């Protein structure tokens, strides 16, 4: 079995893939921040930003609609912003009653809601693109260079490596339980909720022990290869002219969006 489904990286030889990961991280963060700073209802800026993402999609050789398609997985979260509809006073569009509350959807609320969903959706697309054109280990390197403490990046590197091993293990545990979740003919099956919860807890405990013991073995393997408490890595990354050029373009674009969005 494998959990390749976890992989967000898609290998191509595009200009975006070749960019230095630091530049990619910094510009994506800048891009997302810029989105957050756009005022509600900055439609033209939203549209231009989306075009920009479209353009990057094209550059990445992933296909024009790649991030667009992928971004739908994040859409259910739009529900979380529903409360905005009722929270901003303005001209009432319609009203309804639910349990002990009265809800009023106002025009301002609607505007805010739509703006939040769009901004969030644009940001998600940028993040999806980043993960699709940057190998995760390079992403970790980038964060190392951006002075995220080494211990955190190391934990994340191990997490990433063993994510695949352990989720495979979980999948197999879940399958084993599933395949024994049987019923006799004409009989109610499943057991009580408490019992089911206990079984899940047992599985978590089981997984914990195995992970714990595995970390012991990994530590042994590291010792066997000379580890003495500090990790060393080679830095494979170098900043080129094209990286700076791209950074400059992205920065100008962000400034332009802020201008378009506000005036």
């Amino acid at each position, binding site marked *: *079995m494998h959990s*390749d*489904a976890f992989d967000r990286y898609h290998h191509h030889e595009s200009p975006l893939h070749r960019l230095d990961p630091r530049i990619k991280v910094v510009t994506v963060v800048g891009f997302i921040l810029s989105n957050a700073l756009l005022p509600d209802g900055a439609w033209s800026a939203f549209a231009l930003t989306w075009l920009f993402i479209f353009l990057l999609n094209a550059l990445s050789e992933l296909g024009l609609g790649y991030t667009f398609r992928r971004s739908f997985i994040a859409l259910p979260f739009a529900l979380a912003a529903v409360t905005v509809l009722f929270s901003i006073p303005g001209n009432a569009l319609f009203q309804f009653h639910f349990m002990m509350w009265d809800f009023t959807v106002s025009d301002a609320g609607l505007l805010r809601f739509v703006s939040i969903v769009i901004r969030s959706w644009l940001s998600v697309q940028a993040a999806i693109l980043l993960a699709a054109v940057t190998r995760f280990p390079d992403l970790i390197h980038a964060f190392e260079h951006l002075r995220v403490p080494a211990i955190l990046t190391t934990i994340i590197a191990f997490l990433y490596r063993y994510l695949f091993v352990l989720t495979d*293990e979980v999948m*197999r*545990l879940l*399958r*084993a*339980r*599933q*395949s*024994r*979740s*049987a*019923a*006799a*003919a004409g*009989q*109610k*099956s*499943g*057991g009580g909720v408490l*019992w089911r919860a206990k*079984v899940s807890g*047992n*599985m978590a*405990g*089981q997984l914990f*022990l*195995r992970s714990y013991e595995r970390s012991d073995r990994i530590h042994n393997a590291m010792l066997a290869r000379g580890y003495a408490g500090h990790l060393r890595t080679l830095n494979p990354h170098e900043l080129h002219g094209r990286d700076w050029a791209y950074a400059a373009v992205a920065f100008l674009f962000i400034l332009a969006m802020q201008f378009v969005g506000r005036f």
Partner: protein
Amino acid sequence: MPITHAVEKISYPDCEGDVLKVRGLHFSYPDGHAALRGISFHLCSGDKVALVGPNGAGKSTLMLHLNGILQGRGEVEIGGLRLTRDNLPLIRSMVGLVFQNPDDQLFSPTVFEDVAFGPLHMGLPEAEVRARVDSALEAVRMTAYKERLSHHLSVGEKKRIAIATVLSMNPSILVLDEPSAGLDPRARRTLINLLRELPITMLVSTHDMRLVQELFPRTIVMDDGNIVADDLTMNILEDAELLSAHGLEKP
């Protein structure tokens, strides 16, 4: 010593698949990889069949279809009952699936709890559950281990307990995924004897060609999602061309 099977003992193919019938089974994983490309075969009551083929042939994928953990296009019939979403729980009580790694099968702290999971989930009364656990442990000769912690057992012991966890559900067919992997010769021998004695239909995937030769009168060879041969083991093992074409070796 390899046992060569007297031909008259072999009952193949003398039935219409009363225990298991698979017809035109196709399956692709979500990432688009086609793992099964039209599998058809059947098992008769009492059959003991080996499933061999190189890594990635689709053996495990096929096994996961037999009790509906995966559901592809095509038909699976267990004991004359067509597998559908509605009768999944019932089917699961008829097909006992044992995974390669016993650690994946044993998720409870004690042996008893693990063997009792199936019957408990089926909603059987307590006395019946206890009786089933006892007879399943008896069958794999691990009665003394009832109160032990699964975590501390040796691999060979775990393997046997893993088999008990499905025997306790009184399955009509046992499906084992690579049961002998990682066992030392003694544990492997014990397992072979156990499998030989269990009076139940079984389908066993393995890379261990000696096990195939010793234990299974009939062998199915899979490669790349297809069944490329389904014949008496002795015929298959004689077919050097077939073996080498599918990365297998004569024992």
